[in-house]
């Protein structure tokens, strides 16, 4: 099993959600995040004073998938989240040792 984490532009969340549903992903966790990469931040002006806002708003999306599905899911996220402009985000996968569904106590792949 793998935990796939995607940092994407907030306005792309709906597209990514639809793409994940299309490849059979049944659940996900979404949280608001902020950060920056090569995009850096932007400036805002208040009463003539410039403020550099280097942490820009992002959405962090997490799904746990069975090993054979990893590439398909990552491809779906990347395709849906891509605008081609700087700041599109990152997607990565890391191994998951164990997983339990709280309601039933099921473990492993059954709990995904």
């Amino acid at each position: 099993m793998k935990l796939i984490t995607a940092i994407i532009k907030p306005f792309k969340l709906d597209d990514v959600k639809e793409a994940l549903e299309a490849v059979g992903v049944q659940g996900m966790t979404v949280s608001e995040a902020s950060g920056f990469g090569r995009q850096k931040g932007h400036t805002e002006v208040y009463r003539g004073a410039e403020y550099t806002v280097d942490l820009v708003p992002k959405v962090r999306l997490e799904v746990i998938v069975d090993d054979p599905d990893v590439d398909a899911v990552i491809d779906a996220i990347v395709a849906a989240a891509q605008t081609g402009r700087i700041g599109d985000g990152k997607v990565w996968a890391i191994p998951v040792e164990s997983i339990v569904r709280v309601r039933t106590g099921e473990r492993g792949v059954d709990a995904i």
Partner: protein
Amino acid sequence: MEINAGDTSWVLVCTALVFLMAPGLALFYGGLVRAKSSLNMMMMTFIAVGIVGVLWTLFGFSISFGDSGNGFFGGFDSVGLGELLNQLAVNGGKYPIPALAFAMFQLMFAIITVALISGSIADRAKFSSWAVFVGAWVTFVYFPVAHWVFDFGDDQLGGSGAGWLANRGILDFAGGTVVEINSGASGLALALIVGRRVGWPKSPMKPHNLPLVLLGAGLLWFGWLGFNAGSSLGANQLAATALTNTVLAGCGGLLSWLFVERIRDGHATSLGAASGVVAGLVAITPACGFIVPWAAVVLGLIAGAACAFTVGLKYRLGFDDSLDVFGVHLVGGVIGCLALGFVATTIANPAGKNGLLYGGGWSVLGTQTLGVVAVLAYSFTVTLVIGWVINKVMGFRVDEEAEVTGIDLDQHLETAYDFSAAGGGALGQRTARATHTEVGS
């Protein structure tokens, strides 16, 4: 003379309008600071309402409008307000309104003036020290200065009891010196005493809620109509003139501040609109009852543009006047007071004077300059002393950790917003209830 229902209604309504400027200012200032100190910012205004209301009744009205004969300090012969019951208002001439209506109208001016100062020391002042400052400042600065300018004595006693600047014929319809220059100079002095915020000016300290700022600015403008037009103390032509000029100067300030921003920074901002309105209103405050409408538009335009430039001075000079009390109220107040030397006209007010553009001499500008310099110097100096003493005796600032964590939590044991799902926010009520205990148990 009998009480006139129209005049009395107007002054009572205006009193309520000016009162609304206090919560309006609290919203304006509260939105301008960071979320973690917004409650403290608003509380600085609310505590001023409580303290000044009581002090005004005890001795404030007496110091401001009492008859001591020295022109500087009204004395203590009418403490407690009780003897004003069943009297008509007297300020120069006699007005067909209850003396208490006049006293309450003037109270609101004292409240808003000291509350304005709080913007210069946002995010970092100990609440107790601020409360002590409010009491000391109105006693030693506001009440005397109001006496200098606003007290016209009693004509029937040969003008006895008038303030020294009023005696010299200063033109200040609603408080360009008493309210605006007074708060602006004091704000600068207090910012110097209290010092910069941790991280200023390097770390960004941007406004946390601009809709609150716009709502606050709107309420201030609304209340300012009563502030200025009520200063006629009657429902008459002068009130209509003052109200017209107040509307127009706000419009002028709004437009010119946005124009400067669009040209200089590339964008017209909502904060610029709110700030421009206030700058225009500040400048028209002394002038609203002495000038014709076109001059109000021009004055608003000049004040909005000038303040849009001067608010940047603090970064060059290195003083953290956090919400620009100096840059807006002192600068706008000076512009408005001095402008009267040029555009005051007896066409607008037969009891006024003619400035240079209307064939008057240089004496009007001279008197205005004297008033500006006297009030600026007095309030700056005395505020430095009051602030210095409070800082020595009880300390004016919260410690650095409290300031960085958030002054709301440190000084009030509250936070302004809780949108988080965990720990007692919108979705966490059960958790909050489960851990609720009575204070002290």
